[in-house]
């Protein structure tokens, strides 16, 4: 069934969405949307370096994204500029350097648009294996460190006081994010990766009563967006990466229009919200 290019795209896209769901929730909870963007933008620098040094593309992107996140941590500790400004500098600087480097390398023929916006319809059998292999790895890691991740998201000092290591957790989380960005690049493209992380998570929030439910829902919603986007792109002959994001946005808007079905729990909390 993976002989068909559309089927491969579908399987790879759904695999990525399932992985991105829980990770995206943490991006939303930790208010790291712009941070994710910065890491994603730095992927182009990874692409350029990989071409220049004739090095494995995935590894190169992973290393650059991880380095940028570590660099940011270092600069944050210095505390001279706000995180906001630092992110702005790193984000666009790495993107620009990547673009400039690529333009210098006249000897390579590179599909820049493919990297920026993704080329999901061109995924190979190996890509599908990579998405699912990497995805399972990332998901296992997140499940394994779920409690410390949640605790340090709520309050790092509390987590540390009660015997956890929030710094290590944060580092591990950043590495996982770098890995997902490296995997996702080919499917939705550098510029749109963060949206696949954030939009499904934001959509899931309204229907969730626990972090666990939200993580699973975000995966499901992301998968629906991939399926919808891909079929849409087939039908209307639109670029696949942006189509997936548009589908995700559609689901998000739909979620805003629908009133969440209130069970016993929801009505209890809602009435309290009214009092507060």
């Amino acid at each position, binding site marked *: 069934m993976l002989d068909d290019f559309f089927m491969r795209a579908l399987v790879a896209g759904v695999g990525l969405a399932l992985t991105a769901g829980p990770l995206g929730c943490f991006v939303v909870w930790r208010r790291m949307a712009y941070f994710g963007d910065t890491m994603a933008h730095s992927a182009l620098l990874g692409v350029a370096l990989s071409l220049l040094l004739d090095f494995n593309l995935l590894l190169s992107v992973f290393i650059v994204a991880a380095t940028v996140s570590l660099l940011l941590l270092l600069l944050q500790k210095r505390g001279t500029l706000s995180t906001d400004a630092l992110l702005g500098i790193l984000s666009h600087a790495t993107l620009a350097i990547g673009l400039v480097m690529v333009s210098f390398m006249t000897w390579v023929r590179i599909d820049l648009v493919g990297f920026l916006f993704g080329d999901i319809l061109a995924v190979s059998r190996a890509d599908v294996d990579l998405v699912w292999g990497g995805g399972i790895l990332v998901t296992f890691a997140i499940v394994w460190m779920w409690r410390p991740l949640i605790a340090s998201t709520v309050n790092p000092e509390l987590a540390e*006081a009660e015997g956890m290591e929030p710094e290590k957790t944060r580092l591990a989380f950043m590495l996982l994010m770098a890995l997902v960005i490296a995997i996702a690049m080919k499917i939705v493209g550098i510029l749109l990766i963060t949206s696949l992380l954030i939009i499904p998570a934001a959509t899931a929030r309204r229907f969730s009563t626990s972090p666990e439910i939200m993580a699973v829902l975000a995966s499901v919603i992301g998968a629906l967006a991939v399926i919808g986007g891909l079929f849409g792109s087939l039908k209307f002959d639109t670029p696949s990466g942006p189509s997936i994001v548009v589908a995700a946005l559609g689901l998000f808007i739909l979620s805003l229009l629908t009133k969440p079905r209130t069970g016993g729990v929801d009505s209890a909390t809602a009435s309290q919200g009214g009092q507060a």
Partner: protein
Amino acid sequence: MLQTPTRTVQPLVSLAGVGVRRQGRWLVRGVEFSIAPGEIVTLIGPNGSGKSTSAKAAIGVLKPDEGRVERKAGLKVGYVPQKLAVDWTMPLTVDRLMTLTSPLKGVEIDAALEATGIRHLARAEVQHLSGGEFQRALLARAIARKPDLLVLDEPVQGVDFSGEIALYDLIKTIRNTTGCGILLISHDLHVVMAETDTVICLNGHVCCRGTPETVSQSPEYLRLFGARAGQTLAFYNHNHDHTHLPDGRVQHADGSITDDCRPDDGHHVEILPTGGKAGPMRIVHTHGPNCGCGHDHTPRPSNGKGERRDA
């Protein structure tokens, strides 16, 4: 009334000459105290006096830049931080909050919620709780994991007066039933929990320490707070020999002024300090049981005698 536990009991945590520096400024220096099982230590002091910093150094969230912190091996801490805001994007019920750092059985969760009187809120989202309810939820979470040491950073903030009395009563009960040590940070400079064994007043350093005087002994306070409060709240008499000037300098009893609060700065100096930009200075004083100089006067005489000048 419980006396300071004897030295034979290994303290849960002990701080010796602890100082924390950030951006070239000492947040707090020369902090000395220890907490034994069953003991309640209350830190008081104005805003920015280093109460939270000292508590965080005690539980290892902040690494001290000088001095020593010793914690009992395998010490289990229950922590209620001063500020905790759960982002509204995270769906988190009170029930789920309970198992934030360690898995718990359903009965343990129920017992903690019952004890703090918020069992009916178990399925409510924490973002929808009032200030007092949220404090109770945080306290429930901290006690549910049965800690050896409970660290409460201003646990009664956002709680009205009767709620405050109830929370202190609850803290007392927790101490009496579990025998855990409690480090309490109070937002009030003069009124502390009556069960407190040791009050430590901080202002960049340890200004004074002592035991509280129960409100029930003071008719004016009894009239002000009421009889029930009298059993729960206590009045703390400060015993300072120096004044903190508005510009951050310190004026000592003999009129001399130093730049900052170095651990041995002016205040109860016995040995000439070796460093410090303000230069060494020497003030001779006599030690008392609760003189608060941070030095160890073992064997410790009974508390509450001798040093209270204004009693």
